[in-house]
């Protein structure tokens, strides 16, 4: 296992609501716990991952995540079981959306 | 230890236990009182027939001898691994056995388990582990599975498991580990008859195994977690 920590200061978007957990620590998947915590405007992310040696990849994924959302006073905690960056980004966005707008997005008019 | 030797040591006052296809049943004299005895021998795998036979013996005791203490003698290599058992719902037969033990307890029967040889996972969970208190002989084997098989399934090297097992009773087989974790109330080193009489006298119907595991340093989280859930230490809308 490897632990990675990221901190992005001066976010602009605060969260509202209770902590949420999105995703499952299944194979190739991860869980994202997102909480509104006073952090002096920062967003802190801690990752526990089973895939060792991908710190640079995680860093890039997190920078893009911050560029998308610019969260303020947000703590994000991740347990990862080898998810690909695409799945990580998807879960992160789902986690943020679960706190920013409580209504789930429409899944489209399928039969 | 074979069951006859065990019975001689446990019941100096005499017994009428009989074995039929590795199923033990009968009664014995303990401290001047009659005790019902059921169990298995020969490391027999617990299949549907023997699970049902044990359950039948327990219900019969409840019907015919209200309040008579029950001793369950455990020696099994685990549940029987056959398609037919699964097809016929072996889990239902096991659950039935467990429920019969539970009913007996609630109707005032003291129920004690004793692992005198082997106890493995599925065969143990509805016998010794469902009793009000469970004990073992020191040379007994108790486990879910051996470390080599565990290493295969968890993909953790066996050496690492062996190393961890030294300080952490959670992985390793053996009655001492089950004792530390609260799964066993005690290990009977000598004078089995006296130990049995004392166990019957002390037995409480309450499930205190989490507390035992914590007191003995083998299972540190179970009790606090269950307590926190029960006391609502940290509740919020989901």
């Amino acid at each position, binding site marked *: 296992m490897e632990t990675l920590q990221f901190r992005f200061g001066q976010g602009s978007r605060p969260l509202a609501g209770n902590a949420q957990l999105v995703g499952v620590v299944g194979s*190739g998947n991860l869980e994202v716990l997102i909480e509104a915590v006073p952090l002096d405007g920062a967003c802190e992310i801690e990752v526990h991952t089973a*895939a060792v040696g991908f710190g640079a990849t995680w860093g890039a994924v997190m920078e893009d995540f911050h560029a998308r959302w610019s969260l303020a006073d947000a703590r994000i905690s991740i347990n990862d079981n080898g998810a690909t*960056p695409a799945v990580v980004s*998807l879960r992160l*966005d789902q986690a943020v959306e679960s706190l920013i707008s409580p209504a789930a997005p429409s899944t*489209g008019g*399928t039969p | 230890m074979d069951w006859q030797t065990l019975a001689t040591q446990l019941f100096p006052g005499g017994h009428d236990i009989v074995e039929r296809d590795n199923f033990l049943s009968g009664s014995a004299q303990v401290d001047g009182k009659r005790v019902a005895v059921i169990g298995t021998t020969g490391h027999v795998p617990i299949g549907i027939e023997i699970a049902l036979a044990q359950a039948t013996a327990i219900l019969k005791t409840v019907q015919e001898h209200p309040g008579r203490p029950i001793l369950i003698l455990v020696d099994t290599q685990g549940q029987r691994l056959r398609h037919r058992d699964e097809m016929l719902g072996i889990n239902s037969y096991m659950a039935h056995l467990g429920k019969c033990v539970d009913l007996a307890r609630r109707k005032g029967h003291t129920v004690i388990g004793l692992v005198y040889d082997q106890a493995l996972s599925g065969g143990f969970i509805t016998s010794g582990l469902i009793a009000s208190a469970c004990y073992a002989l020191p040379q007994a084997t108790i486990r879910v599975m051996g470390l080599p098989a565990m290493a295969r399934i968890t993909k953790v090297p066996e050496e690492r498991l062996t190393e961890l097992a030294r300080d952490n009773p959670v992985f390793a087989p053996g009655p001492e580990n089950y004792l530390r974790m609260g799964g066993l109330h005690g290990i009977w080193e000598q004078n089995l008859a006296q130990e049995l009489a004392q166990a019957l006298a002390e037995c409480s119907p309450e499930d205190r195994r989490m507390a035992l595991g914590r007191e003995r340093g083998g299972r540190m989280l179970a009790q606090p977690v269950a307590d926190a859930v029960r006391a609502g230490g940290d509740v919020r809308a989901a």
Partner: protein
Amino acid sequence: MTGEGRWTVQQSNRSARLDRAASALGGALNGKVVDAARIVDLLHAVLEPGDRVCLEGNNQKQADFLGKALTRLDPQRVNNLHMLLSVLSLPEHLDVFDKGIAGRLDFSFSGPQAGRLAKLAQTGKLNIGAIHTYLELFARYFIDLTPRVALVAAEMADREGNLYTGPNTEDTPAIAEATAFKSGIVIAQVNRIVDKLPRVDIPGDWVGYVVQSPTPYYIEPLFTRDPAQISEIQVLMAMMAIKGIYAEYQIERLNHGIGFDTAAIELLLPTYAAELGLKGKIARHWALNPHPALIPAIEAGFVESVHSFGSELGMENYIRARPDVFFVGPDGSMRSNRAFSQAAGHYACDMFIGSTLQIDLHGNSSTATLGRIAGFGGAPNMGADARGRRHPSAAWLKAGQQAREGRNTIPRGQKLVVQMVETFREHMAPAFVERLDAWQLAEQAGMAIPPVMIYGDDVTHILTEEGIANLLLCRSDEEREQAIRGVAGYTPVGMGRDKRMVENLRDRGIIRRPEDLGIDKRMATRDLLAARNMKGLVRASGGLYDPPKRFRNW
């Protein structure tokens, strides 16, 4: 040699072989029908050392009884055989080399035996002539690799040797024709010998011997994909494919690779594509095995025709009930033909879309991995521009126009070849690499060229969860490289991109992100799949599809 015999050497040799067989088998030979217990005697009689022997191994049916019989030959009597196999998938296919019965191999695809094949090649027990595409190998059967003896599989035979191949005709016509008309000997293993065949797939006068195998030939459900295993990322990519490529080019005639990515597309046709109003406009004609995942699209009226390389287990009753869509004989079972379907996929389809394991910065893609000599089967034919094509279509012309825009050349179309991959595979293995593993494999195995499945100059689009790179619109090698890096996500190749240049390519529509296509990623859920599990496929088929046992959860 002079005189009459000069031009009939092969015929005379054939007669000698048949005579040897007749005397060796005696009463065990009844017309063309050989007692299964005497199969080794037959092979000893008709084979000669050094013969080119074609053993029918397909994606579906396998001449496994004859393949096993070959391994029982005495290498003192029969050796140094030159084996021709389109699919080398059973252990016995390699046992003949291990035992010294065969020495040389020409083949197309070796999937499950790829590791052992590489090892045998290293020991020198097996000498690889070349790795071909299917069509290429069939072509050589008629030029310089004509079999002396062909060992084929069929469902049934009658006593005259006529063969019924059932829905898995596959390679049999190509093999039998090349062998029979060049004085070779065709031996067929059949599941049953009957008085009257449902239909004749191979005429009896092409066939030398027929043997009823003790057990039916082995068959593998190779093209069945359980929709339950399709991920939301694959749904997103399927949406991008439909909106960004199928709709964009109005692709009516196509071939899909095997895999969950393309299965997701098939399952989104009746839902997402229908919502986009694309029914009747895209995906009408297919060169494709009867993929169970295509059932909902067929039922929704999307699909007008499907011609197949081979069949798929469990689809028999469904196909029988949909003769307007599939190629079905008067008996009600499908007639497949790998050679024709490969030709159809190459010349008559406007697009191939499929997955791969690795893509390099030039767009070359390969599924070759170290220590395994696998080959690519039909993919290179599907995934290559048909330079001999002359008939136009909207999709073909648009692709050609994009490729040649601004250049003063004569108008001409181009086939669309789409590689669809997630940027990372399992265990964080990147799909985009600086150098294909194929180079190292070529060095290890002493191959003349690295085994590339689809060459970069044939690839027109690369589709990942990050976006679609349209390589047709790139005007320089540098642009191509940045377009590829631009959809390579967080792989080292992707992170090595020139951000400014990639943004510029995006402005020009060379790279299109999901949002550029108007796709809301949050819509990409499994709810969009027309069937979400195997039972959903059975329901869609009206109970006609009967999935193999291993795919059921009921």
